[in-house]
């Protein structure tokens, strides 16, 4: 069968059809197609992004053959953008690939509106001055931007987007939404109809733990003045109480109840992270509000009214020891409540849309449904402009990083990556780029780095000699293994941004290939 999606099967299992559709709609611009840029784009082309545009003004030179897989002998002297473009096109004919033989720096200076046509720009190997300009342009045009750079055994990746909101954040671990200590009437009713003291041992060991816990919480509350177990001692007692009700030591459902008893101790209501989103000024809706914030406003109303302080129920239950009948019924009860909550939110979303003069049906049901299911996991990421970070980084953070052993190498490379750009602006080459004169380069880089630190207000702090020497030894080389790692990370973040799934990284990621201790630095 010629199923067109077969080649994407393995990744559809990560981000689903919707994520894939978003990728296929995306239009990506790559600036500079050295190994870092080519590798980043390769991963995106394989994944099936809609279109790519490669901007690079250089010709393929002999040195490129050694570190870029996408050019070969026959490419020598030809446009690098063209060669990389044709290689990438070969990887996936579903992708529209084109190239522009022009220097990115020139394009940034002369034709800023060029960038407005893209979903996202991947800017690789740019120096500071161009980064700042491009960032301004992309913010103006609402185009997502990601910087990636490989430099010897270090490199960085930095996302720059005004605001990125995520519904499907897909956290690793999340407490399931069972409402054991706050059951709604139907769940309570279901639990009440089941007798924990049933004589039949088979029936006894097939009572789902959800029911056991709902009932035992009630029993506990009755004998403890209506409060839940809160102290360590009480929690232990609660577990003992559960244990005492086991009819036999091998009752899996009771063991599960004991294991899951922490779910009972979980506080009711919403998390502080979610509260922060609800309090965000964007949750005050206006005509320009995005769908996300419209739904947040509806959620806020729901929590204050029908929800009684809780978000819409997620509706799924984990697997548990149970008779099939009980399990299926429980599933039904959770699903029904979740559906009812969703309908309320939907109604509220429609009303809000009407109020701000938008088509009340402009947000699809599926989106609202997904929003409800993920209400506890919403994320809002904001990234400060590069210019602000470079001119006025948080001094406190910077000092903390510089003096913290865990971060000192990463922040050292971060400073040095900026210092080499200043250096290059002064001396027309990168430190260590040419044979000979290494000692002079080292002392110049040191001076440059110190003056940068000084400008940032970090007087008295310095970088280790080793690190500065190391940086000079890199000689601005773009090593393939490092480019592969940086390209992998950059493309992964691009996918998170475009699919709006998972949480993209905050801050600047600094890679350190020496011991892989690679930190995210938040400097604003």
């Amino acid at each position, binding site marked *: 069968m010629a199923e067109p999606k077969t080649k994407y099967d393995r990744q559809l299992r990560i981000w689903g059809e919707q994520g894939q559709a978003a990728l296929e709609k995306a239009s990506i611009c790559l600036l500079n197609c050295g190994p870092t840029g080519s590798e980043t784009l390769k991963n995106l082309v*394989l994944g099936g992004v809609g279109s790519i545009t490669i901007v690079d003004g250089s010709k393929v030179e002999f040195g490129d053959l050694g570190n870029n*897989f996408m050019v070969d002998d026959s490419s020598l002297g030809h446009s690098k953008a063209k060669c990389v473009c044709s290689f990438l096109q070969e990887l996936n004919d579903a992708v529209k690939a084109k190239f522009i033989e022009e220097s990115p720096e020139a394009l940034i200076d002369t034709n800023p509106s060029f960038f407005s046509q893209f979903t996202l720009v991947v800017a690789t190997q740019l120096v500071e001055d161009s980064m700042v300009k491009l960032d301004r342009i992309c913010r103006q045009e609402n185009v997502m931007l990601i910087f990636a750079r490989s430099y010897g055994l270090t490199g960085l990746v930095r996302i720059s987007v005004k605001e990125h909101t995520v519904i499907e954040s897909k956290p690793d671990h999340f407490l399931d939404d069972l409402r054991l200590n706050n059951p709604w009437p139907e769940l309570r009713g279901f639990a009440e109809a089941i007798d924990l003291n049933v004589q039949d041992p088979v029936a006894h060991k097939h009572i789902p733990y959800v029911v056991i816990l709902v009932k035992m919480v009630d029993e506990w509350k009755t004998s403890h003045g209506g409060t839940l177990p809160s102290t360590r001692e009480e929690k232990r007692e609660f577990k003992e109480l559960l244990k005492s009700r086991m009819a036999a030591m091998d009752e899996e459902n009771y063991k599960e109840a004991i294991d899951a008893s922490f779910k009972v101790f979980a506080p009711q209501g919403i998390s502080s992270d979610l509260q922060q989103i609800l309090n965000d000024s964007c949750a005050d809706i206006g005509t320009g509000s995005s769908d996300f914030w419209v739904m947040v406003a509806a959620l806020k109303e729901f929590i204050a009214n029908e929800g009684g302080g809780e978000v819409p129920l997620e509706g799924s239950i984990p697997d548990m020891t149970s008779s099939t009948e009980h399990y299926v019924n429980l599933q039904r009860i959770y699903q029904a409540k979740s559906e009812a909550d969703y309908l309320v939110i939907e109604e509220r979303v429609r009303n809000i849309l009407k109020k701000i003069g938008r088509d009340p049906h402009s947000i699809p049901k599926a989106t609202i449904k997904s929003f409800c299911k993920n209400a506890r996991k919403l994320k809002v990421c904001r990234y400060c402009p590069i210019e602000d970070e470079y001119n006025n980084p948080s001094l406190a953070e910077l000092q903390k990083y510089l003096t913290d052993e865990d971060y000192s190498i990463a922040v050292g490379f971060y400073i040095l990556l900026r210092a080499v750009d200043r250096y290059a602006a002064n001396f027309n080459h990168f430190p260590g780029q040419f044979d000979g004169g290494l000692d002079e380069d080292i002392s110049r880089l040191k001076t440059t780095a110190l003056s940068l630190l000084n400008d940032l207000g970090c007087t008295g702090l310095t970088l280790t000699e080793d690190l500065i020497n190391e940086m000079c030894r890199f000689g601005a080389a773009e090593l393939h293994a490092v480019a592969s790692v940086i390209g992998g990370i950059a493309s992964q973040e691009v*996918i998170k941004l475009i699919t709006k799934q998972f949480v993209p990284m905050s801050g600047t990621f600094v890679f350190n290939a020496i011991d892989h201790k690679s930190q995210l630095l938040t400097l604003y």
Partner: protein
Amino acid sequence: MASEEQLSAIKRAKVLMVGAGGIGCELLKTLALSGFQDIHIIDMDTIEVSNLNRQFLFRQYHVGQSKAKVARDAVLRFKPNISITPYHANVKESRFNVDFFKEFDVVLNGLDNLDARRHVNRLCLAADVPLVESGTTGFLGQVTVHLKGKTECYECQPKPAPKTYPVCTITSTPSKFVHCIVWAKDLLFAKLFGDKNQENDLNVRSSDTGNPSEHSEDLFECRKDEDIEQYGRRVYDHVFGHNIEVALSNEETWKNRNKPRPIYCKDVLHLKMTKENGDTEKDCATGDVSAMSSLSLKNPQDVWSLAENSRVFLEALRLFFSKRGKEIGNLTFDKDDQLAVEFVTAAANIRASSFGIPLHSLFEAKGIAGNIVHAVATTNAIIGGLIVIEAIKVLKKDNNSYRMTYCLEHPSRKLLLMPVEPYEPNKSCYVCSETPLSLEVNTRHSKLRDFVEKIVKGKLGMNFPVIMQGASILYEVGEDLEDDMVAIYAANLEKALSELPSPVTSGTVLTVEDLQQEFSCSVNIKHREEFEEEKEPDGMVLSGWVEAPADKDNNKPNGNGESTSNALPSEEIQEDEKDVEIQETSEGTENVTGKKRKLSEVDESRNQKKPEKLDIDDEDDELVISDDWESLTKKKRV
């Protein structure tokens, strides 16, 4: 910028890559561009369409060709002056013995299954060659370095075995969709299309009563007087109708369970409708035979109705017999075999309907049946780069800077890559230190065959075992054995342990050796009378053997890549709650679902998360994530 010394070490190095899949493609490219000049690649696989989203050395027109060879050609096009030697072969073949491994300076794994990883680990230990091991699943990945005597070996840490289900759950009382899949794939598919001589529990009765189905052989053979349509309907009625009736006759089984509903063809499909299946001649290319296309079902993400599943079942069966008749008798389930996936999906869904279990789409069923691990180019690129960086350190003998690196999906403590210093060898590892194992077994009932299959091959991962009691050989596998010895060993296999020529009883110490892996271990035998069928289905218990606790059965197909994990949000973790259990669920693969682990040492930094050791697969088989938090926390983090 690399030093001269480093460059010449790279140039001189002879490296062996095992696996030319997702990681392998990245790795080979990065090796070539980092100056390596003598690279050998072993991979037994051929290229599939589903590889193309990440295995960038391959194109559509390469589908069906050897991965190792195509990868070599693709890289040589760009780097014509280096030497790449491909082997389209299984790394377990005897020619890849210890002497072969000794030729290399470092071995780099990009494998997709536990079995091959263990095999390579042993050969590297025996040959004393450093191993850089790797794996990815989705956005997660890891690279680890293993040096004999200096770091732990690949098998020093527990490796969870693939999930197994009790036979009676599969044959009689399924309660989850995965049980139906296992039934459809391992029993029904195997029975109809696989090796007829294999033992098969398809007709095992629902409990101790019922019919022992001695005439089952006839039932699944197509009779001379029936056409393929009739045969299909007969099989359908037998497995979904008759067998359920038989099961229902045992009242005891259903006392606390919902009774299944027998389903017969005539109730679901009208005769006319099945006849409409006839327009299949339109696609005759044998490779592309598909019941979905002949029935015009397009979207693999749709959940089919019972009637649609029934039509797919009959059509797939018909297509197997009419278009792929030659393969019948030799087929094993393959997740990349479209028709096989269609058949298994349909059969599992019909069975699920019978038992009141929710139905699933082909896409979901395929994920479960194939233990499919999601995979994406980005992670492989990161891991490929990290492997080369580690390999260069190994060549420089830069022992102190080796790192095990974990690539995380969500940054934790400001880290996206988490490096950990390699651990010391585990002193009680039965592979790299000589710690004896012990086996509890009923020596009067268990046969030598059970010991060989379940323990020596199943758990110890040996291919060419020799089993000795003192100086006498009880069993041996090899290519150049005398005929009379072969006969003796074959006879021994069928004998109970205590009845062997040199009887194996409580207190006996067996030596088990694999000549190819040059690996041997001792097993202390302890007699035990009874075993619990549910918990100890092997009828024997091996201890001292590191295996993570069995997975908790947790079937929750979550649709596409929806990773639902239930655990404490960080705010929940309080200092006095150190024994909280965290359940993790990952989708798609049953093996990985619902593992429990102790969250030890939850310290004041609430967000702290230790890396999970991912024994992952670059690709598709047995995804196994062993949640090895405890050992990680005890060791120094970098």
